[in-house]
C-alpha cells in the first residue's frame, strides 16, 4: 500500500510563492484562487519586529471535516492519503468551506464547485511529483510514501524540530525563532462532527419516530373500525 506524507521545511522556504503559481497553472485556477498560499506575519513588539511566513494548504486530514459535512459525498478521503473532490458531484452548497478549519477549500464560481488541493493525486499515480514539490526552488517541499521504507521522507519527519499537523500526514520543519503556534490550528471541527454525527441523526430519528407513531395510531383505529366499532367520535 501507499500512504503519502507531505513535508515542508520552512527553514529553507524562501516564500517565493512559485508553488502557488505552479499549482494555479496545473489546476487551471483563476489568479485570485489558490490551493497553496504563503501567509506572511510579524512577530515581536516594536522595534524588535521579525517578519516571517508559513506556507499552507490542505493538510489532507485523516478524518476530514469537509468530507463529513459534504451532503453529496463529492468530497472523500482516499486510502493513499489525498482528500479529493468530484467536482461534477459538487452542488456548491459550501458546507465544506464552513467545515474546513484551515480555509483550504476554494470556491470556483465559473465551475460552481468548491475545489481543493488534490496533492496532485493524478501525478502521483503516474510516478510524478506534485506541481508544488517539482517547482520548489529550495527543495523545501517533499512528498514521500510512509509504507516505503526506502523513502527519504522518514529521515525528514523524524527530525527533532519537525512538527506534525494534528490528525494529518503533514509535517513542518520550523525556522529558528518561530514557535509552532505560528502553524495553522484546527479549531471548531467538534461542532461539525456534533452536527453531522449527533444532531442530524437525532433529527432524522425524531422524524422517523413521529412517522412510526402516527402509523401505529392509524393502524389502531383501522383495527377498531374493522372490529365493528364503527365510526366513533369524541372522547367519552
Amino acid at each position, binding site marked *: 500500500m501507499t500512504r503519502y506524507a507531505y513535508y515542508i521545511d520552512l527553514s529553507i522556504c524562501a516564500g517565493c510563492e512559485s508553488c502557488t503559481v505552479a499549482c494555479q497553472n496545473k489546476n487551471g485556477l483563476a489568479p485570485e484562487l489558490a490551493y497553496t498560499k504563503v501567509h506572511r506575519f510579524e512577530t515581536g513588539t516594536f522595534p524588535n519586529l521579525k517578519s516571517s511566513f508559513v506556507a499552507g494548504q490542505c493538510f489532507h486530514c485523516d478524518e476530514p471535516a469537509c468530507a463529513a459535512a459534504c*451532503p*453529496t*459525498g*463529492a468530497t472523500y478521503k482516499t486510502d493513499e492519503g489525498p482528500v479529493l473532490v468530484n467536482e*461534477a*458531484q*459538487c*452542488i*456548491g*452548497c*459550501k*458546507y465544506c*468551506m*464552513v*467545515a474546513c*478549519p484551515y*480555509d483550504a477549500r476554494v470556491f470556483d464560481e465559473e465551475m*460552481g464547485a468548491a475545489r481543493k488541493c488534490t496533492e496532485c493525486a493524478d501525478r502521483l499515480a503516474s510516478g510524478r511529483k506534485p506541481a508544488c514539490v517539482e517547482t520548489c526552488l529550495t527543495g523545501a517541499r517533499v512528498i514521500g510514501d510512509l509504507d516505503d521504507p526506502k523513502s527519504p521522507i522518514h529521515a525528514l519527519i523524524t527530525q527533532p524540530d519537525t512538527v506534525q499537523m494534528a490528525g494529518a500526514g503533514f509535517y513542518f520543519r520550523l525556522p529558528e525563532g518561530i514557535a509552532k503556534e505560528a502553524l495553522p490550528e484546527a*479549531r*471548531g471541527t467538534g*461542532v*461539525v462532527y*456534533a*452536527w453531522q454525527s449527533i*444532531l*442530524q441523526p*437525532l*433529527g*432524522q430519528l*425524531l*422524524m422517523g*419516530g*413521529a*412517522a412510526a*407513531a*402516527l402509523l*401505529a*395510531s*392509524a393502524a*389502531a*383505529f383501522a383495527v*377498531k373500525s374493522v372490529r365493528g366499532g364503527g*365510526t*366513533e*367520535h*369524541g*372522547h*367519552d
Partner: protein
Amino acid sequence: MVTTRAGAYRRQGERVFRFVLAERAAHWFHAISFLVLLATGLALVVRGAAAFLGGDVMRTFGLTHRIVAVIFTVVAVPVLMLGARKSTGEWVRSAFRFDRDDFRFLAGFPKDFFGVKVTLPDQGRFNAGEKINSIFQIIGWFVMVVTGWMLVWKDALPRDLARWTLATHSFTALFLGAVVLGHIYLASIHPHARPGFTGMTSGWVPAWWAQGHYRKWYNKLPGE
C-alpha cells in the same frame, strides 16, 4: 379568553365559526411555504438524497429554497397583525399558559391518540396539544428565519458562528418536520381530530365537535 368582538367567532345552528380569513390565509401561506422549504432542505440532510437527485436538481432546490424563504419570512405575521390582531395576541398568550386541565389533557392524550377510551378535561379555544404545537411553531419559525438568512451570507460570517448556525438550522428543521407530521396526521386523518379540518378551509367546524373538544371556549361563544 377568546375574542367575541363583533361576533366573528360564534355559533350558528349546527356549526361554529372558528377561524377568520386572515388566520386561515396566514396558516396556509405558512404551511405550504414550510413544506416546500422542508422538502428542498431535507435533500441536503438525508444521506444519499443529494447525490441521487444530482447537481442540477439540487441547485434548483437551492434557488427554490431561497425564494420560498421570502414568503415564509414576510407573509404570516403581517397578515395576522392586519386581519386578526386581537385573537392572534390571545392565541400567543394562551399558548404559553398552562393550567391544571392542560396538564391533565396532556397526560391523557397518548391514550386518545391511539384510540384508547379516555375522558379528557375541558379545554379552551386551543387544547394543550395545540398549545405545544403553537410554541414549537412560533419559536421554530423565529429560529429558522434568523439562522436561514444568516446562512445566505455564511461566507461573511466567522467560521465558528457559521458552523453553529448550520447545525441549528438543520436540526430545528428536522424537529419541526417531526412536529408537522403529527400535526398533519391529527388534522386530516385522526378520527377524533379531523372533523375540525374545515376550520382551516371554510372557517366553520361542526358544533358537536367544538363542544366536545373546546368546551370552555364553546360555552362562551355568542349564539345566533
